[in-house]
């Protein structure tokens, strides 16, 4: 049911402002659907006289329901809430279903941060995030927002946060966003301080067991190599593990191109490993990742040049 304002007594004191479109020329004449066009006319009018009121909240809600990507409307709503000292909990209750309807919208998240920052508590946010991720478990806005919550409320060492992240990875071991969140908690929260040995071991074991479940999955390989580098361990630490998936004596039974890639690095650093390294790169170029053959051949070229791969 469309909503109109021109015969609504509550709005009789307002004369809607027409769109200032800089004269009617072909590129500027903007044809709105009637309902949206009228509502915007009333918004321009209340903005022009700096009105902050309950009915402005209603009006902005109406416009957002038609077009949630209009940033001006969100900004004015946000100002109105703060001028009225309106209930922020009510605002969140309204935002929840709105966000679910518009999963890819940018403005909603910015608005939400402002409101939750004002409420000064993350209570209820985890349930809401869970509902959002049910729709799209890799939604970038949702994960960025989750990181903001962790930072804002100091949840880096929160056991629940870690358990939840593990559940997300368990539900889909290929969810790179969840892996990134784990890194954010484990490494990001340490502000450059070195990782304790037990944490390094725990994280390596965790990534390894995920790789054993799906050896061709990029995310845990990136994670594993990242941890090894962060802990300043040599890549050769991972040699036995990589061999589980790529034994060059059986070139037809390679289970992971990532393992081959890693072995090429490890062999290249070994004293007499150049030939083995080359073999691994050739397998990648010819059979296990031919779409990037140019890159693998480039790596092979480096071996010939220097004797030690970069």
């Amino acid at each position: 049911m469309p909503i109109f304002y021109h015969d609504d007594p509550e709005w009789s004191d307002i004369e809607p402002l027409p769109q200032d479109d800089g004269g009617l020329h072909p590129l500027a004449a903007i044809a709105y659907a009637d309902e949206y066009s009228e509502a915007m006319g009333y918004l321009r009018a209340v903005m022009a006289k700096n009105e902050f009121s309950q009915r402005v909240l209603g009006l902005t809600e109406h416009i957002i329901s038609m077009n949630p990507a209009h940033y001006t409307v969100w900004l004015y709503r946000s100002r109105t809430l703060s001028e009225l000292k309106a209930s922020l909990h009510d605002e969140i209750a309204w935002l929840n279903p709105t966000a679910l309807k518009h999963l890819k919208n940018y403005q909603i998240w910015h608005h939400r941060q402002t409101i939750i920052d004002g409420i000064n508590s993350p209570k209820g946010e985890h349930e809401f995030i869970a509902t959002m991720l049910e729709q799209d478990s890799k939604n970038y806005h949702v994960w960025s927002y989750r990181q903001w919550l962790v930072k804002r409320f100091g949840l880096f060492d929160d056991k629940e946060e870690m358990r939840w992240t593990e559940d997300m990875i368990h539900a889909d071991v290929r969810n790179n966003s969840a892996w990134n969140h784990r890194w954010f908690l484990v490494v990001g929260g340490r502000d450059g301080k070195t990782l304790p040995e037990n944490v390094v071991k725990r994280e390596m074991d965790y990534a390894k067991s995920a790789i054993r479940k799906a050896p061709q999955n990029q995310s845990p390989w990136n994670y594993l190599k990242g941890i090894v580098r962060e802990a300043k361990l040599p890549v050769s630490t991972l040699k036995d593990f990589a061999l589980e998936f790529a034994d060059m004596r059986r070139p037809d039974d390679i289970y992971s191109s990532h393992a081959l890639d890693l072995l090429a690095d490890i062999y290249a650093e070994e004293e007499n490993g150049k030939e083995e390294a080359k073999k691994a790169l050739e397998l990648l170029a010819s059979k296990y990742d031919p779409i990037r053959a140019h890159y693998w051949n480039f790596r092979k070229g480096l071996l010939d040049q220097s004797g030690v791969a970069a």
Partner: protein
Amino acid sequence: MPPEMQLCVEKHVKYIQSLDTRKDELEYWLTEHLRLNGLYWGLTALHLLGHPEALPRAAVLEFVFSCLHQSGGFGAAPGHDAHMLYTVSGVQILATLDAFDDLEAHMEGGRLKIGQYIASLQNTETGTFAGDEWGEQDTRFLYGALNALSLMDLLFLVDLENAVSHVQSCANFDGAYGTSPGAESHSGQVFTCVGALTIAGRRDLVDEEKLGVWLSERQLKNGGLNGRPEKKEDVCYSWWVMSSLAMLDKLHWIDSEKLTSFILQCQDPELGGLADRPGDAVDVFHTIFGIAGLSLLKYPGLIEVDPV
């Protein structure tokens, strides 16, 4: 060339021209907040297709100026608040049309005013840029700001060193970049971060090989590129990924023939335009990124595009 490897240039030109006459469609006013952006995309695509005259210069400039505020910022359309994204589009359009003199005629000292508006959105503590006076921050805005300022030769208005160190703080363990420190790596963000560092003359800060590997890993078996590990391919990433690879001089690390044929499969051969993947509905956004991608791949007949 076999027909499935053919780019339907005339159809795409018609499609882009037709966008402006579809005003009565619901979709049109829903995306109305994107107007200045959309105009920039359409204009760029027409330039690459070799048909810059298809959108009349005078009418485009009149519209662009009607979005310009006294503050030096541009809104998405007349009557909309000024915002970084649209200000960048405004400047890009003016640069594409070589219209900075027209700008001065329309608003005295306009170039400097726009530069100062952009500079005023920099957070002097962190080096980041906000999208508007309300403070939403994102590396997209930072890249946009540097891009627009360099087009106007006004980079000296901002604290470059601080901006560069913010970009560096968005680097991730996998060698790529996210929207803010710690945020997941994403092709679009890689483009904005590498682009910003390139403009700032600090490409030396990029781990070129590691990032090149991450970018080349975006290519999937069907030739298309994705935006993040373990996600689906999409035409718009052809642009983000390839232009980043081009800036690193590693475009040859991906299979260009397979990518070309993937992009061409996303065309609507009857009505023109390109979609995100074969069989989906076309839109202006994917049309320009697809065409820009083909131009980076040196597709015959297209004007070559500058990756930055």
